[in-house]
């Protein structure tokens, strides 16, 4: 068999998925809102990657915001040449904070989403695969976490997680030192996996009885192969939509925890924390009531735009990928 024909065979096999992908891109390009969402995400990706250029690090840890002019004065200062977006409490540079905060936002969103999906895959997959009592118990517990007010539960977990976490694995004990941001991320995973577990369980149950899965089993495919090659690809699109909508929601929750004062460490480049620091400066004096508008306006605009980008994309994906809504 010549290499060319093998390539052709590969192309023929991939054609349906490729067509599906092309169709998706075509639909996405026709929707101005989704293009806006993608543009926003690309902008933030650029900010995150160019952070060392846009705002050169001034200390050993680039994520710690520098104090402008090495001052620790509590009163914020308006935008100036040294600090284009002004300074926050203790003279933290807001410009530096929002630029490096973009990395924090991506890290938060992507880490929490992927960890949640992994846990959801295991729990949802096992639940759907074994069924019966295992399914019943696991899903009842998942339902409780799913319906429980997420932020309230995350608050409890953030204050409950210790600084030094030791996990006894029988043979060895693994120890982690958890920063305050790590604790926020873990708490959000603990709260966030349940939605994916439900979604994946539902998808697996739906696909399990399809003819092509039965056929794959009949020709002797292993359970793992059936799961990875046949069930997963057909369950992947709902997962993509949920993940895209989730990244925005996760960044919002993390920012909300920071705003409540139980987020990242003081001085860490994190949009939510900049807003937390501005809480005492909403109202100044009757003569100049909004003198410190920049302390909350700028970081908040970053959070809002970032979340908006992901939600626009997720919303567009839902319309494009949902077989019930499209092609009409």
């Amino acid at each position, binding site marked *: 068999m010549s290499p060319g024909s093998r390539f052709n065979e590969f192309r023929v096999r991939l054609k349906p998925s490729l067509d599906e992908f092309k169709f998706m891109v075509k639909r996405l390009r026709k929707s101005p809102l989704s293009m806006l969402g993608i543009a926003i995400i690309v902008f933030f990706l650029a900010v995150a990657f160019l952070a060392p250029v846009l705002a050169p690090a001034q200390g050993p840890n680039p994520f710690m915001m520098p104090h402008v002019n090495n001052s620790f004065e509590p009163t914020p200062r308006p935008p100036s040449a040294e600090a284009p977006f002004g300074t926050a409490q203790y003279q933290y540079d807001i410009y530096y904070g929002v630029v490096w905060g973009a990395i924090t936002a991506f890290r938060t969103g992507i880490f929490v989403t992927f960890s949640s999906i992994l846990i959801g895959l295991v729990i949802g997959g096992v639940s759907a695969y074994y069924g019966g009592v295992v399914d019943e118990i696991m899903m009842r517990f998942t339902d409780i976490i799913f*319906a429980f007010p997420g932020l309230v539960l995350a608050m*409890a977990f953030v204050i409950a997680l210790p600084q030094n976490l030791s996990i006894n694995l029988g043979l060895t004990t693994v120890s982690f030192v958890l920063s305050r941001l790590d604790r926020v991320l873990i708490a959000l995973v603990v709260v966030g996996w349940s939605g994916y577990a439900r979604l994946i369980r539902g998808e697996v149950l739906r696909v399990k009885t399809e003819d092509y899965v039965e056929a794959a089993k009949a020709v002797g495919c292993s359970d793992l192969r059936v799961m990875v090659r046949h069930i997963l690809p057909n369950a992947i699109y709902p997962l993509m939509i949920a993940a895209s909508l989730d990244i925005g929601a996760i960044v919002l929750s993390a920012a909300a925890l920071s705003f*409540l004062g139980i987020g990242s460490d003081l001085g860490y480049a994190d949009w939510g924390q900049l807003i937390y620091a501005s809480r005492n400066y909403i*109202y100044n004096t009757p003569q100049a009531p909004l003198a410190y508008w920049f302390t909350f306006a700028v970081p*908040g605009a970053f959070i809002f735009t970032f979340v908006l980008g992901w939600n626009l994309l997720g919303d567009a994906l839902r319309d494009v990928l949902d077989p019930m809504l499209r092609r009409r």
Partner: protein
Amino acid sequence: MGMRAFLIRRVLLVIPTLVGVTLLIFAVLQFFSPEQRAAIFVDRPGLSIDEIIDVYQLRAPVWIQYANWMRTILQGNLGWSNSIGMPVRDVLIQKWPATAELVLFTAPITILLGIYLGIKSAVHRDKPLDHATRVVSIVGWSLPSFWFGTILLAVFWGWLHLVESGQISGPVIQYINSGHFIKYTGFMTLDGLLNGQLWITLDALKHLILPVTVLVTIQIALIVRLMRSSMLESLNKPYVIMARAKGLAQNEVISKHARRTALIPAITMSGLLVAGMLNGLVITETVFGIPGLGNWAAAAAIQLDIPAVLGFALFSGVIFVFSNLIVDVLYAYIDPRIRLD
């Protein structure tokens, strides 16, 4: 299975769910050392930490601890909130009206406006109104509630001097403390009327405008999107097409044929709305300085007041269990397929 059997089964299901909620909170509790955990077992100062650890067997195996903890909860003892210097149970009783008042104003507006906009969007699909609703709901969904609230406060308090933060204004607080005011319900809007002081009701209403705006804005997208898609589905059902074909007016088709079935999925989602509301309350009450449960829990979290945060979490859990019960019963009442299944 009739409605009665469904009701009994559904009410009985509350018990394992409540046990699940307590297990979840208990699991969080286990992260703390026995010394830190002690405050959740007693609701009055007096016993030393060592005595508490001894009496409640805080170093014993977890199931004994769980049994002891459940016993104290069932006796109505939720521990001592150190940040406010009161038993958690008393704080819950004292502070729930401010929170409930906020919810009672927010929920109907969110649900009715959300359903209305969702139906309008579906009926005028891909028209300007649909696009506008879509953009507004995505923007609302993406707005950080703490930021939106802060901006509203900065504009309407700092700049325009129309309102201030808090639940009521200074003169009202003075009047309440003067002794002529009787707190019947704890709802300021209602107590003002019951005391014959209309100005207090108006003052309380004025203070509710901004927080309710924030909560409605961030919640409404969920209902609008859901209502829109279920209405679109319903509009394509054969009986709706039939209704159109026999020449019924657009209004009749929508209100008598399409809307009824489309409402069912919206009702099942209201349970999630309650959860979203509890999340939003923590932030909104903190931003606007409303002395409710969310504000207390947020302040307690910073000070590592464990009984307060877990007490609030438990309270939220119980609320969501019962709101889901109500939703399911409503659902079965509206949709006979559920109870006859």
